[in-house]
């Protein structure tokens, strides 16, 4: 799926800031900076990956700056960023 550069979220405590950009290489590349990286780094990457794949995005460069967001918040921010990146409104139908 063709994507543009897009972003969603904030740098507030309890939130996550997601930036999505096209990736020249195959696959999803996630660059994560998190205040809870030791305990939840893998879990956060898993939620981002699953959310993007669920929206049909298999190739993208993702920069995630996490301030301790819960999984539901991460899904919401990633979905919003994906909708902006693809122009495809997943909430429309």
């Amino acid at each position, binding site marked *: 799926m063709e994507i543009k550069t897009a972003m969603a979220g904030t740098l507030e405590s*309890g939130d996550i800031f997601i930036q999505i950009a096209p990736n020249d290489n195959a696959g999803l590349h996630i660059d994560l900076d998190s*205040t*809870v990286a*030791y*305990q*939840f780094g893998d879990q956060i990457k898993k939620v981002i990956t699953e959310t993007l794949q669920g929206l049909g995005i298999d190739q993208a460069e993702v920069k995630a700056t996490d301030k*301790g967001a*819960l*999984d539901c918040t991460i899904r919401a921010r990633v979905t919003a960023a994906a909708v902006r990146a693809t122009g495809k409104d997943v909430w429309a139908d």
Partner: protein
Amino acid sequence: MNSIKDRAALIAEAAKQMNKEVYNDSQVKKNITPRHELQRNCGKVVTLEEAIRKTGLKDGMTISFHHHFRGGDKVINMVVAKLAEMGFKNLTLASSSLIDVHEPLIEHIKNGVITQLHTSGLRGNLATEVSHGLMEKPVIFRSHGSRGYAIKSGELHIDVAFLGASSCDPLGNAAGYSTSENAKSICGSLGYALPDAKYADHTVILTDDLVDYPNQHSAISEADVEYVVVVDSVGDSSKISSGAIRDTKNPRDILLAKQAAKVVMNSGYFENGFSLQTGSGGASLAVTKYLRQGMIDKGIKASFALGGITSHMVKLHQEGLIGRLIDVQSFDKVAAESLMNDPMHKSVSANEYAAMLEPGSATHFLDVVILSALEVDVNFNVNVLVGSDGIIRGAIGGHPDTAQDSALSVIVCPLLRGRIPCVVDEVTTLITPGSNVDVVVTEYGIAVNPNRPEIKERLVAAGLKVVDIHDLAAKARSIIGNPAPLPFGDKVVGVVLNRDGSVQDVIKNIVG
């Protein structure tokens, strides 16, 4: 026939028997310098470098400091930089605590100037580096009460204490405030510095206001001071009330504070003449505000408030709701000024504040203490020193001292901070054993230690939401998921001592 000449032989004989000299009047000359001039030229006032040399400080010795200026402290960095410049190595630094501002110590540790730390807490990059294994020797962590007692008993021997003071006369009478017109700084109580001044082999006062003798109502007596060093600034007073002791506007902290105040008011200890302490942390400091109305409504007055004294405590004292303030550390400028001006507001040394083995410790006569926590576990154990990521980020302070000695200890902490759980199955590091923790207040309910069934009964009767602490831990887990285990290494970077001097826990390094 009984003139002094006649008694000369007897005087000589008495002197011989007592192994003393016979008084020789011709050796005595009066010093006729005007006294104002004399005190200004007193030999105690020297430069920092001279003071260091004259104390005879040597490599391998122990130096000490206080942290009353908290984030505004300038003394530790100034003195250690001078010691590094003079070529000292292998020193042990024993401060009452260390904060973000002491980050320059990292370089002095790397260069071998400082090779061991004794402190109540560590924060900022220094703490992060230590957690990653910066030092060969582990940091020794003590509570404020145990530090005071360790200094008195000689377990923590201090060779030279370098103590900042907001005023000092040329003889060494020093205080945490200044009544002169040249006052540059104010920190209030010097409670943590008093054991150092009294028991260190050598004490040097650094001051930014050298006042005329006598500096009255001084905290530290000239008898304990060898040298006085005048510097531009010992600390920035505006930075005292920051970090862990900020005044909160966070709505969740306010909710926790209101709940904790209800716990106190219904605990059975809220009676005329009760005594009170609140520890650092936004929610615990704010409890005083909400207790005030309850005290007015029920006509209850507290006999004394203890500890880190805040402007809220001072307000209640001035309104007649708290009889006396016992101040080991002034948490803000209002408290520091009250200490200076109000005879019912008195400072106390760390030892007399909270030492386990000091019979007169103020904490022994404390009814209620409100404390914060980084983590509480299902056995009511509390951690206030090491973050849930394994990195040191706090301070023991008086937490274990007051929790153990008080009749009722109340911990206020949110269930979660971001994605970090505060109610857990087992604390990362054991600081205050659960046997000393009575009530835990969270925004999801109040847990009462099974050791205190009578408290639980009273809180339930008052209509407060009392829950099982296991349910709080489960609730936290259900929201955040299961954290991955922390990447601890095999090196011990910190040792936590209990109040009784025994080793209670160790902190391992974090890898990566």
